[in-house]
């Protein structure tokens, strides 16, 4: 058999807690004592001895209790080995946090270290407009977070003068130092069904960055 293809896609030795295998697979080096939260259903393979605990009551409560009807389907992974995660071919970016604060659209969270501080945040100003009810997971501390994006994401600094407006469906994550407010840009014409199609935006101002995906697809693909 021609081994080139097989060798070409073989796993490389991990060099950090999280890394990419190709643009769409996250590889996590698991160790006992250093647990991981991952989206349920995102595991595509693992090597070694890793166990999964689906939505334990403790944090299921923490999430579901905050927002009626919404929950972040997470599973806790623990053990030793290599864990491979993916979300239906979405691009994956592994972010090392060093006392950073990040707010990630719940749909775009793939995995994060369990020791990080996190909580569900409702995005002020927008949830009541956008049909799907935008809510986010705020993550802070020092550790790794894997984020998905439909298509290759782009990072934009908001430090420039003026506000940056983002389509909530394309929003992936932002640094929590930013001021966020909702903006309804629709005019009377939108109500007549002839709008520009861009009725709601989130306005960001202040120092920090915003990560945006080149797609307005914010559908949940992973199982609930």
């Amino acid at each position, binding site marked *: 058999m021609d081994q080139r293809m097989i060798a070409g896609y073989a796993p490389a030795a991990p060099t950090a807690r999280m890394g990419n295998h190709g643009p769409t697979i996250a590889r996590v080096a698991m160790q006992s004592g250093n647990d991981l939260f991952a989206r349920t259903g995102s595991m595509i393979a693992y090597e070694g001895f890793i166990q999964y605990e689906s939505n334990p009551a403790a944090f299921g409560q923490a999430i579901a209790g905050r927002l009626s009807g919404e929950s972040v389907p997470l599973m806790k992974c623990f053990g030793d080995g290599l864990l491979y995660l993916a979300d239906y071919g979405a691009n994956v970016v592994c972010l090392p946090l060093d006392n950073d604060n990040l707010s990630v659209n719940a749909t775009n969270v793939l995995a994060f270290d369990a020791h990080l501080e996190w909580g569900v945040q409702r995005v002020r100003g927008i949830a009541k407009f956008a049909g799907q009810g935008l809510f986010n997971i705020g993550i802070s501390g020092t550790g790794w977070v894997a984020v998905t994006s439909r298509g*290759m994401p782009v990072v934009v600094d908001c430090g420039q003068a003026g506000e940056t407006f983002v389509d909530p469906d394309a929003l992936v994550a932002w640094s929590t130092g930013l001021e966020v407010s909702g903006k309804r840009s629709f005019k009377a014409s939108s109500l007549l069904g002839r709008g520009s199609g861009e009725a709601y935006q989130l306005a960001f101002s202040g120092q920090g960055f915003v990560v945006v995906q*080149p797609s307005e697809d914010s559908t949940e693909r992973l199982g609930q």
Partner: protein
Amino acid sequence: MVAHFKRGQKARLSDLTLGTDLYVGVQISGPGLVFDISCFGLDAAEQLSDDRYFIFYNQPKSPEESLQQLGAQAGDTESFRITLDRVPESIHRLTFTATIDGDGTMAQVAPGCLRIVAGGDEVVRYAFDGSEFSTERAVMLGDFYRKDGWRFAAVGQGFDGGLAALLTHFGGEVEDDEPPATAPPAAPAGQPPAFAVPGAAGAGAQAPPAPGQGGGFSPPPFGGPPGSPPQAQPVGAGTPAAFGGPPGGVAGQPPAAPPFGGQPGAAPQVPGQPVPPGGGFPVPPGPQHAGAGGPAAFVGQPGAGIGQPPPAPPAPPFGGHPGQPGGGFPAPPGAAQPPPPASPFGGYAPPPGAGAGGYVAPPGAGAPAGQFAPAGGAAPGALTGVLDAFRGVSDGRRWSQQNPQLIRVDLTHGGGQPVLARQGSMVMYHGDVDFGYKSQGLMGRMTRWATGEGMPSLMRCTGNGQVYLAEEAVRLHPVELQGDAIVVASQHVLAFDESLEPEVRRIDGHGIPGGSLFALQFQGHGTVVITTHGEPLVLPVTPMTFADANAIVAWSAGAQVLVANQVRLRRHAYPGHSGETTQLQFRGAPGNFAIVQPYEI
């Protein structure tokens, strides 16, 4: 329109195209071969007198950005953007070369080509294949040179040595190459072995990217050796400032700085104080400095875990750090590829056979827990480094592609001219931009004609600011029209300048899904952004060119479209017919093209 060049053929560029903003793409491949494609900006004596005009993976653009390396795209192994009227007077010749990185000879090269694209049209194609070469390890593919204006020559001349030998060839003076050559002594002095590789005389420059040393070679290759000579430079020449000053661009090419600066004897100083190779490229070069910066920072982390100050980009430890022995740059196999600017994921390379499929025990498993511990996981500034890889470009142009799937239009350029974009394609904007419904005139007629799937509703973006456009992560291709015309299937139009008056073309035919195919013909001066699912194929129109009506994206306005129905009785005879019954046939003069996508809507 495409001129097919043969080896040795020359032509005045103005006979080929009037454009001076050219795209040069090189397609070269071979089984198991890895190529470095570079552009040398040479002076009148065909010498590389200014090393800032050596454009390669570690220095992707010249100071005034007239020469830019864009990375792999549109089927090209490597591509460049050349703005000839901005190339300084001192540069008389631009030579495009391909060198093999690793083992192999040019005889193994599969058929490839060098092509020049101006204003979206391919104007020159020089095809070559391995049979023209023997044991050469480098090839000079083509030259742009000044002789009563710019001319282009298809060279196709093999070269025995690798990249280092080519450098010597263009550098001329022997001592030019000496510092790199003498750099190896630095290695024994406690530097990571990888570091020595690039300097190794002659063929050394194409060291195979073995997992162990590949990392050392690829990203820092030239950043690496530079690390040492510059280090020595202050001692030898007393010009530390020369190094402190350089902004982004220069950091990537320090390698050449000492060599071409002609300060021989600088190198011997090195052995005493090995420099962490990381110092070689503190400032990520490149248009998307993401490309180099991201991976670099990322690479730094493992180092952090192993107990070594991570050479994060923000901390360029230049003069200091005499002895960081620990192998400086861990360079995971993932980083073994030169970070192509075009691909923010440059950090990833198919692991070069590491472990060939075997289970690579996570180092963490046996290592002290600290290795991947939270603290070890993230180096200060690491987040910025990773994010840098995804930072957009702001090159001051009206239309600038941020990544293959996202484009930014700066409404402040181009005289405040509005942009028409498909409704809902805005993902983000800065500044004061108004999105309005576009109703009157032609557009109205179009939407009326094409109810439903035909022409998408458009919005008009006006004001002062930058708008980021994307759609469902499909690939975007800005096509700049310079008075010419292109026809785009309406569902593949993402956005266009209002100055381009589109004209509806409707192709009716039995068997076309929806009854007819709507297309917009754009003509004039401006940019239209075309979407494709996947990497498109541009077919030259020949007497027998057919495309599937579901996969067609666009075609040149000069091509005539016919609907070809292949009526076969057999179609009704059994259910498993080919399904390919209606095609579009394109006819036209040579030079016309049709674009199809690998996706049938």
